[in-house]
């Protein structure tokens, strides 16, 4: 019998070329794809929002966001995705759908979205300038502080956008979760829009 290997391939595997793009010199924008993460959508069962919140608090040690915010736990990021629902983003299978099923069995429905999204992290001096071309959200530091989340659209595509912790040196870091089948298209738009600033391109296995 033939042998089968199951290599997971990012939807951006071909489009992402890890070399400078656009204007030469110091890049104004860094685009980094974060690969191989677990992403679970947690939605409260009808009338069970408080039970879900209690379960989340008990499991993660912090309250799940009830407004458009992202909160960090020891090994995951909880990202608001709508009323009475949030995403659990983690690496290394630490908070996979399988491990979360017993936690929320009585209070929430879980849907595995690990393969349904591509995660792109955007930083650099011109990160806001680039995002202003893609998003109608006001990313002014005071208007969109660390931990702010927006369920919005970019390039006619639904995305979840949030501001992660600042990078060393204080530079803002923005994260975009985009539907996997739209990812290459949005990536191309990001390259088009960011070429004038110079782009540093890479991919990483680490969550920012």
């Amino acid at each position, binding site marked *: 019998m033939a042998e089968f290997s199951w290599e997971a391939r990012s939807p951006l595997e071909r489009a992402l070329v890890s070399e400078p793009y656009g204007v030469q010199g110091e890049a104004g924008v860094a685009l980094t794809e974060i690969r191989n993460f677990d992403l679970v959508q947690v939605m409260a069962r*009808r009338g069970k929002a408080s039970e879900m919140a209690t379960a989340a608090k008990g499991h993660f040690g912090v309250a799940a966001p009830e407004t458009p915010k992202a909160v960090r736990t020891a090994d995951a990021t909880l990202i608001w995705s709508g009323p009475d629902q949030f995403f659990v983003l983690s690496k290394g299978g630490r908070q996979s759908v399988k491990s979360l099923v017993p936690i929320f069995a009585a209070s929430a429905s879980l849907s595995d979205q690990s*393969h349904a999204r591509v995660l792109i992290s955007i930083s650099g001096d011109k990160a806001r300038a680039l995002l*202003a071309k893609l998003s109608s959200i006001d990313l002014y530091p005071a208007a969109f502080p660390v931990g702010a989340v927006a369920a919005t659209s970019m*390039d006619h*595509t639904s995305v979840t956008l949030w501001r992660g912790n600042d990078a060393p040196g204080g530079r803002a870091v923005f994260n975009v979760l985009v539907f996997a089948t739209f990812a290459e298209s949005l990536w191309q738009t990001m390259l088009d829009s960011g070429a004038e600033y110079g782009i540093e391109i890479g991919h990483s296995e680490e969550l920012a």
Partner: protein
Amino acid sequence: MTSSQSNRLDTGGLIDRSQPLNFRFDGKTFSGFQGDTLASALVANGVKLVGRSFKYHRPRGILTAGSEEPNALVELRTGARREPNTKATTAELYEGLDAASQNRWPSLAFDVMSVNQLFAPIFVAGFYYKTFMWPAKFWEAIYEPAIRRAAGLGRAAGVADPDHYDKAWAHCDVLIAGSGPSGLAAAVAAGRTGARVILCEEDFALGGRLLSDGGTIDGMPAADWLSRTQAELAAMPDVRIMTRTTLFGVYDGGTYGAVERINDHLPSPPEHQVRQRLWRIVAKRCVVAAGALERPIVFAGNDTPGVMMASAMRTYIARYAAAPARRVALFTNNEDGWRTVGAALGAGLQVAAVIDARAEISAEHRSLASKGGFPVLHGSVSGIDGGKNGVRKISVSLTGGARAEVEADGLAVSGGWNPAVGLTSYHRGRPKWRDDIAAFVPDGAPPGMVAAGAANGAFGLGACLREGFAAGAAAARDAGHGSGSGATPVADDEAFSLAPLWHVAGKGKAFVDQQHDVTASDIELAQREGFESVEHLKRYTTLGMATDQGKTSNVAGLAIMAAVNGKSIPETGTTIYRPPYVPVAIGAFAGHHRDENFHATRLTPSHHWAAEQGAIFVDTGLWKRAQWYPRTGEKDWLESVTREVKAVRGGVGFCDVSTLGKIDVHGADAGAFLDRVYINTFSNLAVGKARYGLMLREDGIVYDDGTTSRLAEDHYFLTTTTAKAGLVMQHLEFCRQVLFPELDVQLTSVSDQWAQFSIAGPRTRDLLKEIVDPSEDLSNEGFPFMGAREVALRGGIRARLFRISFSGEMAFEISVPARYGEAMARNLMIAGKPFGVTPYGTEALGVMRIEKGHVAGPELSGTTTAADLGLGKMMSTKKDFIGRVMAGREALVAADRQVVVGIKPIDKARRLRSGAHIIPKGETPGPDNDQGYVTSVCFSPTSDQWIGLALVERGRERIGEIVHAHDPLRGEDYDVEICNPVFYDPDGGRQRG
């Protein structure tokens, strides 16, 4: 004067004389300086004739120094970058600029079409409407192209624009339009409070009229105040100054449109940069400090080159150190016009005369006249002697009836000022008339917006500063920022006096709208013919409909209409103001969304594998789907598709069907929810089973279909068609949140989570046995038709397996998490190799579904009922569901409805085409006997002929009847036989076996 620039003044101006620039106009080389516009450089070189007019091909010069210019339109740049109708007055000069005049042939100085002037009496308002009416079919073929050649406004490049454009959003507390004294005062007042400020200035330099008219502010020369203010604003981190940016529109919710001409002032944008950027600016407050536009007075010959707005003449002299004439006359009806006299004398130009329409002239001006040695004439200009080389002599009707003549090579005209009321009126606001300044001023504005300074009818420098400053401070406060604006800048207010004068009677053409060649007599004619309303006047004469939107002509036009109607100007009213304030290139609106990036593209998980296989892709919605996989030697698509169908029916093939919409339906009431949205029942579906479902719209018409599987007691996995994936998700969310909030149901789109492949053909099970873990039972008993469950795959991952068939063959659909999609395609090729596995595309998929009589998009057309599709029996009578009641309406259950049947041509060699009408045999085709149409066709390799599905009146009662297919679109007529829509394996043995 500089030798190569005959009309360049020796000193002064805001040009950089250390940076000379060469440019070409109509093939002739000239030079100018950094800081010039094309217009100012032409003025500096003594060029007066810059274009020919739209209709009469009259010689035209430069009228203004801004974006309101009606005449000085040129084709800028060459080749693919050629841009017609570019205003020379706003085009910045750059080294190597190449411009050409428009509307002339063979040359600007000798223009054949200027004979149109001889026929002028017939080229009156409504001429085209009246003359080219008959025969109607001549319009598109003959009249319009000929008129367009003769009239036209420049030539488009005709090839794709090589440059890029983009779009961006910006946000602020206070948005300011214009950087004249009012705008700058508003910006400092708002900026000092810490408010986020965006200031948009159309020009490349800040200052507005300060750049031309100077003055004294806070005891210092305006230029010093300007540089001090610019430095203060530049030091504020939350103040953004955007030059070369026109705020062109205001939209809902405090959103504004602006276009930034980032690289229009360069020959071509630097690599990776865009030419223009379209901004959508969200502002809590907006201060419109867009200033005012000086308006002409309409008199005979007022379009002669050398006739120029008085303020524009000051601008050319003071800002650009370029003399529009050597001997200047002024025609004014107001005090402000006199400032041009001072500017001309200061630059060492001769002043020939001032013609002032007012009764009183101040002693100050009289003494200026005697010192300058020129006469002041009470009266009006009634005619111009001159031609393409410009003004020579000016005829004056003196108050009291006498006539005079003035020799001059330039005439400055001032009829007063019109506040720029565009932005404030774009939400269908109508400006109000103010008698004291004889002008329309804003009467309210869209929410959050206020006008200040000249845009609000305040014409003095001191008043502009006060109004702008107060508006800026108030806007910041309203946007949530406190005090700290500091002191208001102070300046004196100039004297204001104006005697309204719109039109001077005289012999010869007197132009109101110079860009569209609309004359005063055209307006009088329109009135005589009954087009009295300003909206009718506009459309009948095309007044104000050119690219300048009548900025210099509208008010004069309606004043003339008011006069001939015997009404007041406010009674006559204005036309509706609409954005954009200046023309905006379509490219800027498109941004990066052009060519292959016109819209977002969705790629299936196996896309790149399919591309490697040489697949031909088809756009279906946003998706790229593999349509077929050609092989070497195949002569056309039909050969490839036929091979793929035969390979599936005879062996095994697979197809990426990940484009189907996929929805997780969770919750204790998931089954009850599905019972309400589908016509058939899902609450009784066993865990581990799949069922075909059909949903209706509220009106009883079929909405969508697909298979839904029950994966757990409280978890269904629902699929939709590719086309309706997003809409069905929306529909279900609406049902969940609004119609049935009492149900415990959660919905999540998992369309992108799963890569799903259909594997079909008699060898399907053999292939699956290779790839599925041997512990899984795939036998007919262990995994029967419509089974659905998770299985382990060899190599370590898990998949969902559904035994469903669209092709009519023994088939499964297999789902793996999407990042394994490409591996799945490769592994299916490996596992299926011994069985000749064949990847197939959407064409083969379509052929097999037609052979099997399955309905799809063409039949689910938004007009068909479940019964029309042959699925009426699926409608449960034991429960309620969306669309049930309305589906029972008389017309929806009528016996003569068009229903799905099969058709095959009587001539077996004939190709069928969808869209053909079905007509009873022997009858003449027509709407009265049109009994339906062909919805889907294919060449069926199994039947070895073309077959189709059709919607035919009473079709199911007419199996075996020969009818006529009438296809007027393609000019085809032929007979077809109505048959059972299931052409292949009608008892379904193959898919169950």
